[in-house]
C-alpha cells in the first residue's frame, strides 16, 4: 500500500476539520479526493504532505509511519492551486530547487531539468521568469518542480482551479499522461466532479470532514450509498418511496414492481430512491411507456443544452394529487429534472405546457435510513415550534430531506390503542418536555422507526454519543448513526456500559472486546469511524452523566422494546437538556 491513513483526525478550535478518515491507496493509483469547499479535503492532503499535524491517527507512506516526520523528509511532491512558484527564480532554478537542496552536481541537475521540461511539454523555457508565463505554463512548471526529487507520492491541491476551461482540459491530459508514464501514486483534491471522473482510478468523496464513500467512478455514479454522493456526483432526483413486500410504491396506485427485501406484510418502510435525469422516460400516454410508470406530469421548462435537452417537469397535473414526492421538498408538488438525448427529442418532441406520462428506467434505492422527518405535536402551534427548531432545519437542509407535519391530538396518551391505518413511516420529531417518554413510546408503537427528541433551540452537536440497549438493536443503531454523522461535523463516540463497578477489573477485557467489535462493524459495514468509551454502572445514569459533561452533545439510543424506555430511561428522555435520537428495531422484523 502506497498511502495508508488510519483514523486521521484534525481539530480546529474543537471542531473536527478532518474527522476519523481511514483509507488505503495502492501503488501507482490515481486517487481523487472529491468534495465541496470546507469538506476537509485540502487539510487532509496537507496532512499527508506533512504541512499540518494531526490530532489523532496515523499516516503511513510506503509502509513507513510518517505521522511525526517533517514534510521535507516524507518524499512527497506537492502542487498548489496558486502554483507557489519562486518568483525571483527562473523556471530552471525553480525546477532544480529540490535537487540543489540535495547538493546534486550542476550537470546532473541540468539533465534532470531537461527531462522534466520535456515531460511537461515546456522545452526551451528554462530561463523564463514565472511572471512571463501563462497560468497553464506556470502550473506545468510547478508539476515539474514537484517531481524533480523523484518523490514516492504526488499530491495536487485543486491544481486547475485558477485556470480557464480549455487550459484545464489540456492540463488534465498532461497530468494523466505524466502519471501513467511515471507510475507514481497520485492524490488529487478537487471539488469538480467532472475532473474527478476524468482522472480518477478511484474517487473518495468527502463532506464535513468525513470520508463518505470510496470507489470507482462508475460504481459511485450508478450505485451510491448516500444521499450526498448521489447528488454531488451528478444531477439526481431524490424520491421518497415506500418499500413493502410487494415492491416499491410511490403512494397511490403507481408502483414499480421490484423484488425488494420483504418486510412484515402490511408494514412499509420509507426509503429514498435516486432517479437520474437521464433515466426518466417521457411519453404521451401511459400505455406507450416502455419503462415502469411513475405518474403524470406537465412540462414546465425546456432548456436547450447542445447535445442534451434539459427539462423541468411538474409532477401531477392539477386535479390529481402528486403521489411521487421528492425527498427534498416541503410540500407535495415538486419538479423532476429530466434530460433527453437528441434521439429521444426527435422521437417525441415536447413543448412547455404539455402533459406527459413519466416512467423510470432505472431506480436506485439508497440503503440509508432517515428518509424524511415528520414533526409531531398535539397542536398546530406546538408543531410549528418543532418545525422551526434550528437543529431540525439544519439537518433537513444538510440531508436534503423534507420536514412534514402531523397533528396528533392523542399523542402520548398511553391508553390509546395503535391504529394501523394511521401508521408512521420514517423518523418522527417531537419537542423535548416532561412526558416525552410517553410520546416516544406512542410513536414507536405506531410504526415510527426513529424518534428525534429536540429541546428548544438545539444546535448541531459537536459530539454524538451512541449506545444500544441490546445487541438486537445494534445494527440499526449503527446504520442510523452513520447516516446522521455524514451530515453533522461531530465526533462519534460509542459508549459501552457494563453493569456494576465492583466487578470492573474482570469485566474490562470482555467490555473492551465488545467495544472493538462494535467499532470494526461500524467501520466495515456502515462506513462510520467512531471512538469508544467504556463505563461501568447503571446505563441510564452513566449516559446522563456523559451527556452532562459538556454541552453540544447528542445521544443516539437504540432499543428493541419500547417499554424499556419508560422503565429505565424515563428520566433521560424527559430531561429537556439534550437532543436524543431513539432508534427502534422491532424484534421480529428483519434487520435493516
Amino acid at each position: 500500500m502506497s498511502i495508508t491513513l488510519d483514523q486521521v483526525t484534525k481539530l480546529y478550535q474543537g471542531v473536527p476539520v478532518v474527522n476519523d478518515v481511514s483509507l488505503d491507496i495502492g501503488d501507482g493509483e490515481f486517487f481523487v479526493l472529491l468534495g465541496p469547499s470546507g469538506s476537509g479535503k485540502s487539510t487532509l492532503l496537507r496532512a499527508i504532505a506533512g504541512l499540518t499535524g494531526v490530532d489523532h491517527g496515523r499516516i503511513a507512506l510506503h509502509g513507513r509511519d510518517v505521522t511525526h516526520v517533517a514534510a521535507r523528509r516524507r518524499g512527497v511532491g506537492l502542487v498548489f492551486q496558486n502554483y507557489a512558484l519562486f518568483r525571483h527564480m527562473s523556471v530552471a532554478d525553480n525546477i532544480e530547487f529540490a535537487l540543489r537542496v540535495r547538493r546534486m552536481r550542476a550537470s546532473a541537475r541540468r539533465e534532470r531539468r531537461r527531462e522534466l521540461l520535456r515531460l511537461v511539454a515546456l522545452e526551451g523555457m528554462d530561463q523564463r521568469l514565472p511572471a512571463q508565463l501563462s497560468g497553464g505554463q506556470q502550473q506545468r512548471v510547478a508539476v515539474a518542480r514537484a517531481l524533480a526529487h523523484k518523490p514516492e507520492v504526488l499530491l495536487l491541491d485543486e491544481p486547475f482551479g485558477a485556470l480557464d476551461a480549455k487550459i484545464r482540459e489540456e492540463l488534465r491530459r498532461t497530468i494523466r499522461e505524466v502519471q501513467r508514464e511515471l507510475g507514481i501514486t497520485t492524490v488529487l483534491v478537487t471539488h469538480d466532479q467532472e475532473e474527478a471522473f476524468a482522472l480518477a482510478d478511484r474517487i473518495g468523496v468527502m463532506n464535513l470532514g468525513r470520508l463518505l464513500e470510496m470507489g470507482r467512478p462508475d460504481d459511485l455514479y450508478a450505485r451510491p450509498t448516500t444521499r450526498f454522493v448521489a447528488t454531488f456526483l451528478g444531477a439526481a432526483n431524490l424520491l421518497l418511496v415506500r418499500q413493502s413486500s410487494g415492491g416499491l410504491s410511490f403512494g397511490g396506485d403507481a408502483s414499480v414492481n421490484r423484488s425488494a427485501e420483504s418486510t412484515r406484510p402490511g408494514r412499509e418502510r420509507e426509503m429514498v430512491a435516486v432517479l437520474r435525469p437521464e433515466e426518466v422516460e417521457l411519453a404521451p400516454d401511459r400505455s406507450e411507456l416502455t419503462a415502469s410508470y411513475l405518474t403524470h406530469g406537465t412540462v414546465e421548462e425546456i432548456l436547450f443544452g447542445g447535445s442534451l435537452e434539459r427539462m423541468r417537469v411538474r409532477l401531477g397535473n392539477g386535479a390529481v394529487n402528486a403521489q411521487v414526492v421528492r425527498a427534498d421538498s416541503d410540500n407535495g408538488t415538486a419538479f423532476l429534472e429530466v434530460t433527453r438525448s437528441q434521439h429521444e427529442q426527435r422521437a417525441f418532441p415536447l413543448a412547455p405546457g404539455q402533459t406527459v406520462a413519466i416512467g423510470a428506467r432505472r431506480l436506485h434505492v439508497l440503503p440509508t435510513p432517515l428518509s424524511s422527518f415528520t414533526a409531531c405535536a398535539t397542536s398546530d402551534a406546538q408543531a410549528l415550534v418543532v418545525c422551526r427548531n434550528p437543529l431540525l432545519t439544519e439537518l433537513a437542509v444538510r440531508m436534503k430531506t423534507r420536514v412534514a407535519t402531523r397533528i396528533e391530538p392523542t399523542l402520548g396518551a398511553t391508553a390509546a390503542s395503535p391504529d394501523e391505518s394511521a401508521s408512521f413511516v420514517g423518523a418522527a420529531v417531537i419537542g423535548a418536555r416532561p412526558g416525552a417518554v410517553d410520546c416516544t413510546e406512542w410513536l414507536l408503537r405506531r410504526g415510527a422507526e426513529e424518534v428525534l427528541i429536540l429541546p428548544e433551540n438545539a444546535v448541531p452537536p459537536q459530539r454524538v454519543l451512541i449506545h444500544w440497549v441490546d445487541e438486537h438493536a445494534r445494527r440499526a443503531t449503527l446504520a442510523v448513526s452513520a447516516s446522521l454523522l455524514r451530515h453533522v461535523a461531530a465526533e462519534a463516540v460509542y459508549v459501552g456500559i457494563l453493569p456494576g463497578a465492583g466487578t470492573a477489573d474482570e469485566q474490562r477485557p470482555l467490555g473492551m472486546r465488545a467495544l472493538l467489535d462494535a467499532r470494526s462493524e461500524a467501520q466495515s459495514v456502515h462506513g462510520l469511524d467512531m471512538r469508544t468509551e467504556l463505563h461501568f454502572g447503571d446505563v441510564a445514569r452513566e449516559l446522563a452523566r456523559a451527556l452532562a459533561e459538556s454541552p453540544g452533545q447528542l445521544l443516539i439510543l437504540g432499543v428493541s422494546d419500547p417499554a424499556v424506555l419508560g422503565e429505565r430511561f424515563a428520566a433521560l428522555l424527559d430531561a429537556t437538556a439534550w437532543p436524543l435520537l431513539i432508534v427502534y428495531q422491532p424484534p421480529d422484523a428483519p434487520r435493516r
Partner: protein
Amino acid sequence: MAFRRPSVLPGFGLTFGFTTFFLSAIVLLPLAALVLMAASMSWEQFLHVVSTPRALGAYRLSFGASLLAAGINLVFGFIIAWTLVRYQFPGRRLIDALIDMPFALPTAVSGIALTTVFAENGWIGRYLSLAGIHVAYTWIGVTVALTLIGMPFMVRTVQPAIAEVQRDLEDAAETLGAGRLYVFRRIILPTVLPAMLTGFTLAFARAVGEYGSVIFIAGNLPMKTEITPLLIVIRLEEFDYRGAAALGVVMLVISFAVLLAINLLQAWGRRRIVATGR
C-alpha cells in the same frame, strides 16, 4: 495634450490656485532664497566654505553616524519586524503600537530622555561606563539617538514585506526538502530585500538631517561631536547667512540624491514583486 483633461467635477480653479499659491509662498520662495543666497557666492568661495575642517568634521559625524545607525536598524529592525509578524507573545499588540512612538514624540523630548538614560549615572549609562563605553557626549551617543529615530522607518517598511511573503512558497520549499534556514536564505530574504533597502535609505535620510534628538546627547564639540545641522545654526547665529546657505545647499543635494535613490529602489522592488497565478 492640453493642460488638463476636462472633467465634470468642479473646483479645479479654486483648489489648484490655492495649492500653487500656498506651495509657492511656503516652499518655493524660501528654497529659491536658499539657492540664490548660496549662488551669490563665487564658486571658490562656496567650495571654501563647505570644506573647512570644521565642516568636514561635521559631515564625517553626520553621515558616518547616520550610516551606522541605519545599518544597526537594518539588522535589529528586521528582527523586530519578523518577531512582530511571525511570533505570538504577551504584549505583542501593545509593542506593535509603540513602534510608532518616535514618530509622534517631539525630538527634544527624546533628546533629553536619551541623554539622561545614557549619561554616566543614567539607568543604562552606568553599566556601560563600567565596561568603559561612554555613550553620552560622544559619537556613540549620536549614533544611539539616530538609531532610535530611524527605527520606526525600518520596522514599518519591512513589516508589510514580511507579512506578504506567501506562506505557500515556504510550504512548497519545505516539501521539496529545504530546511528552515535554507528557506530563509533562499526564499524569504530575497523577497524582503527591496523593502529592507528602502527602509535603510529612509532611516538614513531622516538621520542625516536630525537635530533635536541629537544635540543634547552629542556634546557638540567642534570637529568631534558636532553635527552638520548644528554647524548651520551656529553660522546663522553669527549672521554668516552665506555660509549657512552653502552648507544648507550641500545637505539639500544629499537629501535629493537619497530621495531619488529611494524612488528608484521602490520601482526596482515593484518590478521584482510580480504576480503569480492569474
